[in-house]
């Protein structure tokens, strides 16, 4: 017993120093040199100022921008405190939130999409994401928003569609995962193009 205790005390110190400090410190040093951008959060800078991260959604409410999926974080799109919404599949609040989100979308998009019905709203547009900072929307969701953005910015629809295509991350190696449109990158590209 005493022997085990002595051995354990030494092992705990050795393992913590090695696996908890030495290895991660060396790994961090390597990361900072070899993959500096990724290692520091894939931040995007414009004119020397950090405007966000490629990997985190941020709030967009102006009509000239594409809007991300709903977020359950407080405040919304808080990349410092991610969370699920945790509403069960039969929770009445889920039904209410989905209805409210769908109504808001119809109100926003209908002027630019005559005849738009709730059946045209893709499910990702009315459901919270897992992280609360899902950087992507589905191509279907982007297509729905494209007419509004084009109209508000007085851009031809084809130009906006081209930007959507350019900012769609396809499946990795053309196989793994699902395609997603990176909202922040798309909106930055739109701002560079102008309009609005």
């Amino acid at each position: 017993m005493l022997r085990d205790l002595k051995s354990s005390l030494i092992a705990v110190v050795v393992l913590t120093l090695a696996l908890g400090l030495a290895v991660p410190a060396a790994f961090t040093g390597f990361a900072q040199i070899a993959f500096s951008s990724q290692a520091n959060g894939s931040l995007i800078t414009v004119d020397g100022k950090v405007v966000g991260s490629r990997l985190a959604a941020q709030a967009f409410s102006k009509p000239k921008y594409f809007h991300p999926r709903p977020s359950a974080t407080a405040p919304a799109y808080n990349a410092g405190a991610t969370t699920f919404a945790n509403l069960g599949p039969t929770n009445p609040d889920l039904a209410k939130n989905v209805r409210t989100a769908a109504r808001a979308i119809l109100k926003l998009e209908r002027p630019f999409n005559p005849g738009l019905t709730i059946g045209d709203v893709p499910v990702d547009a009315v459901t919270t994401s897992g992280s609360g900072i899902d950087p992507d929307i589905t191509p279907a969701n982007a297509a729905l928003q494209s007419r509004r953005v084009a109209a508000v910015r007085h851009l031809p629809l084809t130009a906006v569609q081209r930007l959507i295509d350019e900012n769609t991350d396809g499946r990795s190696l053309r196989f793994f995962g699902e395609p997603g449109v990176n909202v922040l990158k798309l909106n930055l590209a739109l701002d560079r193009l102008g309009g609005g």
Partner: protein
Amino acid sequence: MSGQGIAQVLVYAGVLIALSYPLGLYMARVYAPGFRPGWLSSLENGFYRLVRTDPAKEQDWKSYSKTVIVFTVVFFGLLYAIQRLQGHLFLNPDNLKGVPAHIALNTTASFTTNTNWQYYGGEYTMSYLTQMAGLAVQQFVSAAVGMAVLVAVIRGLSRRTASELGNFWVDLYRSTVYILLPLALVLGVILLSQGVPQTFSGHATATTLEGAAQTIARGPVALMIAIKQLGTNGGGFYNSNSAVPFENPNGLTNFLEVIAILLIPASQVFMFGKMVLARRHAWMVFAAMFAVFALGVAVALPSEQHGSQVLRSSGVNITQGHGQSGGNMSDKEVRFGIANTALWSTATTDASNGSVNGGHDALTAFGGAVPLVNMFFGEVVFGGVGSGLYGMFFYIVIAVFIAGLMVGRTPEYLGKRIEAREIKYAAVGALFVPTMVLTLTALSVVTASGLASVFNSGAHGFTEALYAYTSQANNNGSAFAGYGATNFSAELGTVALMLGRFAPLVAALALAGSLAGKKTAPVSAGTFRTDGPTFVVLLVGVILLTAGLMVFPALTLGPVVEGLTH
């Protein structure tokens, strides 16, 4: 369901088998006494001198169990202290305060038992020091403990008239340094290259395009995520775990992370086959595991694609195709879609991993029942690193025993006679945890302090509680995350975590110790063959009957009611 989604699942299964077979053979070599990896051997011998052990001196099952427990208790103390004191320690750029006592207690129990249940949000609760030198160290070490115990148990099965099962320090060191660390470094670099952060700088602050301030949490993430996946730990750096793009940025990282969940547990089946010279039998065990895994995916995937009643009746478009994967996208991420989230939720609970790439609380009734039942089986479908296969031995012994009863012969397993003592150990190993789960769940839903943790109402709320204690007692760590932390639930959880880890662990070592002492009988015409398909059917049947029947009544009150009434 899309063909693309099914293709991803099939490729997953193929790659898993292709990688785990050679890795299993390598692992069998690593644990053999003659393994000498060049100059690394001197480092290894240095460790043995430091902890004052003679690597050639082996321990019997009692001594081995004792060392495991003492070692875990000492680490428990350190991890608790780091959390409580983190506010006064270094590597805390965001100036986080000490972790509250009951959360720290539950978290310590959770990480030292390879569970990684999280009653906290990592990025705003734990300092970099706690994440890196506290939690992530446990992600290596608690995994290595499980692997060590498995090797000891396998030695018990293969040795004749012996009492020694191995030297814990040797098995611990080799699991960590020759298996976990190299795999974690390789996976860590890949994750890093794809966008998982690794920095000691505090959070970043951005000014968004619309002029608001946004906090972006980061830290030493990549290496932790690698070992979290490989060591069936599951405890993420961020609250939303692998759903967060900083833990899991794209389809490729998702694929590699979900491979990593089952990689070592699957390899251990082949390692076992090599160590006991019963490769055909190992393939049959693998087949039984694979069958339950496939069954899980076959239920979870269509359920999630079908979506929930709320989403279907809302009128929004949940049909797959035309630029979306459709289905139940609630608390799921676009880049993973339905297939990859359903696959993950199945794999993470087949193993004792418990990481998630989408919110389990928002799964459909039957999509959520799959992870629940997987855990209730004791996570023996590949299972936790080490703990999965030693848990499976309980079922194997019971299956062999039942086969013996049917033909009226003394049951044998790998040439060893299975007698009353072994059956007792196997029964304790297989039934203790499910019994405890039902007891604790009952306690939590009949007390006001227990009910305070429940977030959703009705049948789903019951499932939250059942899931919480199933997950903690089976050392999984995934959650219906609405289930909240109170002092009561944190303490009840701590009991589940500790007993759930050590009761089966000691039962497995005792079983091995008992079998090691026996002679090996030659195979005769009356021996029940464990290397054919009959054995696979019997084994799956035993799992379904013992654990399945125990969970069925509770399952009826939760997911079944929810699924049938809506």
